[in-house]
């Protein structure tokens, strides 16, 4: 258990990372390093998007599954790693 905590801490302190959050299967954030309103917004929107993406991948081939989802925007990059029950979201500003 401590390993996961360490990993999350490492991610948070990595270069360029703005925030991380853990969201459960229903779109409710469990852990976050950002403020509440932002977290709730991100959680709700990204949860839906991830479900949609996953559904798309699996509809094409049921044996396939979504590994991760990256959304790169002008300002930063949002990375979503879905799990069976949880969703891990990291917002990073990639150094360019």
């Amino acid at each position, binding site marked *: *258990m401590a*390993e*996961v*905590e360490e*990993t*999350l801490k*490492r*991610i948070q302190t*990595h*270069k*360029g*990372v703005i925030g*991380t959050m*853990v969201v*459960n299967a229903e779109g409710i954030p*469990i*852990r976050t390093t950002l403020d509440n309103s932002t977290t709730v917004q991100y959680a709700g929107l990204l949860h839906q998007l991830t479900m949609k993406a996953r*559904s798309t991948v*699996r*509809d094409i081939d*049921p*044996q396939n599954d979504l*590994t*991760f989802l*990256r959304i790169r925007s002008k300002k930063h*990059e949002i*990375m979503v*790693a*879905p*799990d*069976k*029950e*949880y*969703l*891990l979201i*990291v917002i*990073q500003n*990639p*150094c360019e």
Partner: protein
Amino acid sequence: MPPKQPLRRQSVSVGRGTRKRDEDSGTEVAEGADEWAQSKATVRPPDQLELTDAELKEEFTRILTANNPHAPQNIVRYSFKEGTYKLIGFVDQLAVHFSQVGNLIPKDSDEGRRQRYRNNLVTGSEESAKLVISEAEVVEEEDEPKEAEAGSQTDVPAAEAAEKVAEELMTPKQPKERKLTNKFNFSERASQTFNNPLRDRECQMEPPPRTNFSATANQWEIYDAYVEELEKQEKTKEKEKAKTPVAKKMGKMAMRKMTSMESQSDDITKVTQAAKIVERMVNQNTYDDVAQDFKYYEDAADEYRDQEGTLLPLWKFQNDKAKRLAVTALCWNPKYNDLFAVGHGSYDFMKQSRGMLLLYSMKNPSFPEYIFSSESGIMCLDMHMDHPYLVVVGHYDGNVAIYNLKKPHSQPSFRSSAKSGKHTDPVWQVKWQKDDMDNNLNFFSVSSDGRIVSWTLVKSELVHTDVIKLKVEGSTTESLEGLQLYTVGCGTAFDFHKEIDYMFLVGTEEGKIYKCSKSYSSQFLDTYDAHNMAVDAVSWNPYHTKVFMSCSSDWTVKIWDHTIKTPMFIYDLNSAVGDVAWAPYSSTVFAAVTTNGKTHVFDLSINKYEAICNQPVVAKKKNKITHVQFNPIHPIIIVGDDRGHVTCLKLSPNLRKMPKLLRTTVGNNGCEVTAFGGSSRQQPRPSKGVSYLEHPSPPLAPGLESLPHSR
């Protein structure tokens, strides 16, 4: 107007005669009494008609007629026929004094008859009902004896009685007893009972708990369900096979405990997988340019460099915990091409501390995937070809240990000890061998104590066998008792032949290289006087079975043919050579690293006498590079230094030239050296033909395929 009657007698006139003038005749009581008794004088009213006597004696005759005195006597009516008024002679003389409408109706009138009929009906029915009962009784009495005979139902007599009743209704003349209500005293009385008050009674239960359930049925959901079902079935099959009934119960209990434990434990552990992926993604972003370079960058300047190449630094791997420790061993994982192991320890005899084994993945340069620490410095390591999760290490204190990456412990799975025959000096090299005949894991180790030991893992214990003892030749002397004493050489490096299983080379501290066989434990097959100082590394050429290479702290790298006692090539690198390695893609390329921080890459097919790349790789000059390894697939090398850093470098195209197939006069195996001085092009083995430039996979996808297991 009838004439007035002669008025009353004037009986009172005498008494009052005296008092005629007095009009208050009634007030005097005293004299009145007298008057009452005496007087009967007549009093004349003032307006009396005064008639003479003659008039008074007149007789008037009166006639009683039936004429109505009030009826008019001369009625005249207009007659339209004659157009004149006519006198009607006959006038109605009837005078009605009193009339009243009564409620008596004559019997014979219509209304009377009707009423009579109605009354008779009412009384008739009452009587007829009584008559029916009596009749019915009579009928029943009559019919009872008949029933037995005729077998008739009771309905029939009832029907007959009913008919009789109907007849009787028509003639209600018979005397009836009728309850007559007493018209004078009869009073109806009604009473109302008390209505019970109505009350609503309700009872409400708690509604059953409800939850909303929604789900989708997609192709992949169905697929998932099937897969789960399959897994369950397989599990049950395994359980049935493996365990006895008692054990089954235990197993179930354990399973329950496991599941309950899992649910109790913090939910955050389930994010492990995702966290790993995300960490790699984050790193990929940070080192994005490096990853792109790794995959796609080819130094275009190589065309102009006249056969020389460069090394492009990619990532640098370091860990805080291993900062003070030197890199003592490097090894790529045979199965997962981005995973490599780094052994940390110390070469300094005086400063010996702990050791660490770190496994890094190129996908995550910032943190190792696995960390193991040990008390004694790790000097060498090797990964098994077939079981990529088994890592064997040799320690400074002479112990060997096997780590199993699949298990989460940070301790080795198996460890040698003083009892089980550990070395008495640091173990300089370990190498896995093929599984022996009993399918036990098997590896060799060489150490400064002069022993080459074969270790076998038998039923989770390490059993050792001394293969050979390195005796320094010529040092065997006879002591007094007849024992043969010999000086033991210190082995520092060894390598096994790729094809000839039993043959291997050992390098020693004295600078000699012995060619040994696993089967001969006392004698060497051959000896080479290789170097003036300790041999740091020996390595067989992966393609050319006769060629091997050695390097030493005497600044030289030598290439040998094992059939010839003198080296074919000697290279002087101006600094102690720490390690040397053949390239996996070409039989003529090799790299050597020196303690002055430089890496030299040679390609014998291009330039036999000089390195085609000569590049300082580590930043500070005091950093000594200790080891180098080529990646089996990718065109990169990793270089470890004595500060605990591992640098990953990409070989530029010039360094990666694969030799063309020559039209040589070679046989099937196609390996012949044409001449020493001539072209030393050797045909590479076709099986290992790899093409770097056409690798299809994306640059270091952060998926988790590289991990031997998922925790």
